């Protein structure tokens, strides 16, 4: 064989004194030992023995010839590899004889290794990605949370108080968010500028690659103006020229000196995109006067002192927080809480749970794969008892037999790993392709070699343990003569495996089917409006060219009539936000600021939030939101003086119970810092149907609409809704040209509302696709495993069935017997699985929509399916066994 000669050459090369290896072949060795015995005989004859005695004596003296020969032969360098190759050839021959067994094991391993590796590769950058900061594990985000804002933030007044008196942190810093800014010099462009504290970069442990951090003086309100550039901006604008240092750059008409450049991997802790870092240059004293005395909003980050945990830091910060809490008006005070958590938690909170669920699902899958392989190998081991007994009788040591079995297991595991790796590569591509835009760092997902090695190690381990187990049991002499029967220990082991396998499969398949059902619910979500044929047109007006609310109003009204004149457009409306409000801005106020004339003041702090939208009359017609009571806004209202309201059905019901809302007067209270009623008095003219306004899966809030009237103030935040008979692509160009006629510098985004809504389902679709994949593979694996192991249990009893039938048992007797024993296994497996699944699916609660974690349908359907599969796996081979002629069953196996 060619491969042999290569090996032999490699071995010779490895073993150094090659002539010795060649010279000591087995024949030569025999000759050498033979010579020794002959010398011995001659010596004995010379000592006076007869030839026969001399020969006998020499052999006695020599001892075990074979043993000496083997031991000597083993001194040969490369003997181990030689043995391994021999075992490998043997294993390959046995796979060739039993290809279904080999294929089943390899496919199972490939699925397990492939799925686990692909999922881990997706999840790894989310859960375990290294953050681009020095000692990121000690960085925390510190701030206030309340019911409307779960992502901690802080306010200038609080921040400076905390910073002055805090003890648990080495340093304490903040950023003031990222704002749009403009490069106002030759070739002007639109940029994103982040305002940060002077100690922002040092706290994160980031140093500029070129130049320096801001100087303390540059962080003062009237200090020298400096900027830091991001790597991408440095590249796109200056082609990474180091000479930009200390040059001047004009941002929003303000000349600034370039102090340095950030490293390429730099990220803001809240992951906002930023081209430029500016010093926040806060007026510290003013933070106690501006914004009702609590200062401007900001986001604080800190580096923990060594040996201080997050919990300790929180305990130490609590008295400070309590002190500053006094500045919050008493009616809200209880709503604010201090929150300190790691930056990683803050960045990843939304995807943490799905990521863990996926990881758990894939590990479960690996567990099932391992159980399958274990079951298959142990069944095969039991089936080969006779072969092993023969080999043992022919002189193979237990160690040798175990080595041979392990070689087989290793070969299977390696083949599984190769296919698994290929599968993982394909799966990862699919995952990335179907993933929604919102999954952070998914594009950075790469196949992870650590996890490949980990899964291969698991596969090898279970192959070795279960493959070796059968071989380790010293083959009994009777195995040579008796028909193969199974030892009680291995039989029990396989029964336990079947029970475990039913249990684990049940958990995986029911978890996955819950998520699939939940996704279906989400897809069939009633929006409360119709998106068919509706286009949204968003324009980003450059505020520097629109100095007043009047300028904005002029633009929108002119654009509205221009759009109306387009062929194919039947209706145009303007709104400041758009349902179903997922990941988009909308205005909201607190329920307790509703003051209804003739009703007592609402309880402060109660009632949560209410969504509000400012719309023109066409809004309800275009989205086909029904007016249930009263009337809609009309065109005349737009020019009239007076404040009108339309309430959503849920808000009307809450404010007025069963009374009619029409004609009632509502005022909005503000707390500055005490309850005042000084706004306009609104009159309710209508009640509209409820519309989704907290994303597809969110709990809807009550809502009210105000009229975007021509007499009121306008902001630059509005968008247009078009009702059209044409598809978005056909009308986009004419919409764009109409807008360009009014403001040529304004970018326009046009999207069909149906698509917008569809995109919202991307994330759950991604999760469901992944879990659906797991459910399917898990089910296939469960079927393979259960069928393989249970059918083997029955096949082993072919002879027993033969005896029973020979003694007069009917086929139905036999089937009943097999089914009864199967039912015991299935029963215990299902009970175990249900208990685990009911506990595990609790974790899914937050991921589920419109379905409970204990959905009865799921928990009836999934176990039934698995029970059916397992029963089939037992009955089919049992039926086959009953058809065999009892004599044949008894005689041959």
């Amino acid at each position, binding site marked *: 064989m060619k491969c042999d000669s290569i090996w032999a050459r490699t071995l010779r090369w490895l073993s150094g004194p090659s002539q010795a290896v060649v010279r000591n072949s087995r024949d030569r060795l025999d*000759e050498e030992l033979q*010579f*020794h015995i002959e*010398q011995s005989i001659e*010596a004995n004859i010379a*000592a006076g023995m007869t030839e026969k005695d001399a020969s006998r*004596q020499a052999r006695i003296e020599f*001892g*075990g010839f074979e043993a*000496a020969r083997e031991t000597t032969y083993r001194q040969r360098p490369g003997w181990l590899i030689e043995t391994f190759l021999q075992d490998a050839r043997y294993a390959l021959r046995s796979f060739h004889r039993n290809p279904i067994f080999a294929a089943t094991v390899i496919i199972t391993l490939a699925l397990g290794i492939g799925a686990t590796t692909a999922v881990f590769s997706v999840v790894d950058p989310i859960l375990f990605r290294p953050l681009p900061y020095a000692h990121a594990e000690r960085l925390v985000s510190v701030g206030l949370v309340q019911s409307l804002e779960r992502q901690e933030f802080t306010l200038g007044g609080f921040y400076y108080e905390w910073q002055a008196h805090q003890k648990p942190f080495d340093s304490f810093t903040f950023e003031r968010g990222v704002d749009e800014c403009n490069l106002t010099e030759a070739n002007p462009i639109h940029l994103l500028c982040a305002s940060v504290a002077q100690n922002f970069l040092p706290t994160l442990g980031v140093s500029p690659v070129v130049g320096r951090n801001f100087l303390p003086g540059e962080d003062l309100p009237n200090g020298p103006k400096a900027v830091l550039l991001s790597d991408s901006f440095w590249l796109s604008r200056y082609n990474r020229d180091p000479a930009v240092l200390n040059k001047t750059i004009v941002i929003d008409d303000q000349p600034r000196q370039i102090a340095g450049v950030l490293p390429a991997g730099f990220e803001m802790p809240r992951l906002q995109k930023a081209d430029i870092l500016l010093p926040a240059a806060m007026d510290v004293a003013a933070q106690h006067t501006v914004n009702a005395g609590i200062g401007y909003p900001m986001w604080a980050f800190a580096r923990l002192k060594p040996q201080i945990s997050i919990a300790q830091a929180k305990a130490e910060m609590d008295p400070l927080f309590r002190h500053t809490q006094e500045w919050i008006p008493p009616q809200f005070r209880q709503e604010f809480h201090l929150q300190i958590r790691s930056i990683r938690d803050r960045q990843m909170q939304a995807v943490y749970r799905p990521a863990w669920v996926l990881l758990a699902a894939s590990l479960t899958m690996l567990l099932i794969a391992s159980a399958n392989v274990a079951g298959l190998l142990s069944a095969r081991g039991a089936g080969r008892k006779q072969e092993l007994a023969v080999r043992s009788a022919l002189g193979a040591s237990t160690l040798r037999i175990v080595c041979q079995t392990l070689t087989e297991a290793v070969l299977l595991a390696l083949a599984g790993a190769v296919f698994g790796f290929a599968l993982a590569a394909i799966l990862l591509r699919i995952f990335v392709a179907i993933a929604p835009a919102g999954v952070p760092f998914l594009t950075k997902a790469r196949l992870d070699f650590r996890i490949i090695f980990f899964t291969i190690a698991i596969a090898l381990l279970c192959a070795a343990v279960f493959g070796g187990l059968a071989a380790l049991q010293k083959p009994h002499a009777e195995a040579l003569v008796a028909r193969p029967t199974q030892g009680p220990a291995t039989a029990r082991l396989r029964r336990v495996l079947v029970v475990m396998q039913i249990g684990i499969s049940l958990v995986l398949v029911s978890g996955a089917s819950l998520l699939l059902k939940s996704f279906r619910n989400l897809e069939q979500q009633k929006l409360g409006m119709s998106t068919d044929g509706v286009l949204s047109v968003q324009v980003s007006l450059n505020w520097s060219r629109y100095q007043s609310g009047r300028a904005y109003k002029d633009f929108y009204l002119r654009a509205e009539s221009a759009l109306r004149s387009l062929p194919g457009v039947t209706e145009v409306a303007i709104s400041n936000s758009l349902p179903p409000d997922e990941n988009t801005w909308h205005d909201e106020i607190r329920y307790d600021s509703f003051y209804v004339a003739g009703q007592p003041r609402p309880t402060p702090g109660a009632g949560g939030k209410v969504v509000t939208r400012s719309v023109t009359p066409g809004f309800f017609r275009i989205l086909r939101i029904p007016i249930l009571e009263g009337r809609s806004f009309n065109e005349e209202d737009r020019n009239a003086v007076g404040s009108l309201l339309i309430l959503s059905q849920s808000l009307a019901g809450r404010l007025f119970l069963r009374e009619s809302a029409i004609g009632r007067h509502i005022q909005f209270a503000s707390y500055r810092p005490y309850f005042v009623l000084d706004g306009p008095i609104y009159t309710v003219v209508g009640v509209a149907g409820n519309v989704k306004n907290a994303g597809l899966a969110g709990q809807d809030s009550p809502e009210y609409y105000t009229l975007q009237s021509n007499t009121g103030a306008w902001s630059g935040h509005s968008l247009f809704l078009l009702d059209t008979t044409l598809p978005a692509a056909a009308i986009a160009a004419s919409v764009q040209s109409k807008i360009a006629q009014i403001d040529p510098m304004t970018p326009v985004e046009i999207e069909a509302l149906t698509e917008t809504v569809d995109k919202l389902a991307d994330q759950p679709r991604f999760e469901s696709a992944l879990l659906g994949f797991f459910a399917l593979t898990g089910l296939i694996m469960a079927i393979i495993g259960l069928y393989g192991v249970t059918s083997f249990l029955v096949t082993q009893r072919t002879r027993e069935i033969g005896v029973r039938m020979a003694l007069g048992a009917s086929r139905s007797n036999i089937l009943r017997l097999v089914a009864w024993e199967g039912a015991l296994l299935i029963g215990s497996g299902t009970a175990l699985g249900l208990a685990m699944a009911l506990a595990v699916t609790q974790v899914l609660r937050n991921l589920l929509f419109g379905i409970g974690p204990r959905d009865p349908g799921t928990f009836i359907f999934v176990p039934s399916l698995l029970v059916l599969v397992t029963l089939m796996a037992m009955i089919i081979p049992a039926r086959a066994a009953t058809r065999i002629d009892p004599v044949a069953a008894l005689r041959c196996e």
Partner: protein
Amino acid sequence: MSPSISSTQPRSTQSGDLLQGTLDLLILKTLALEPMHGWGVAQRIQQVSKDALQIGQGSLYPALHRLEYRGWIKAEWASSENNRRAKFYSLTAAGRRQLKAQVKNWGRIAAAIARVLEGEAPA
């Protein structure tokens, strides 16, 4: 020649580390005099030690082959004294160096053991 226990027991192939090292040393020392075949080595050791050391074949040949693979001794097929083809082993240069080192080492260990035994005797 009376059959010795050690030479008839194949078990003696499993010699401990010290024994194995000692056997290597004995073989190297024996071969330092002249090239010899395996039977000759065994006989020589037995004679010189006045029958105190009998080398079982089960240990002798593995040891000879091991030393050959290590390059300390080399082998040649040649005619024996009674005109049979036999494998003659002889010491290589590396083997000589090894012998020197091992003799020195043996001396150190023997002296150390002797000291331990002497120290224990009075007690």
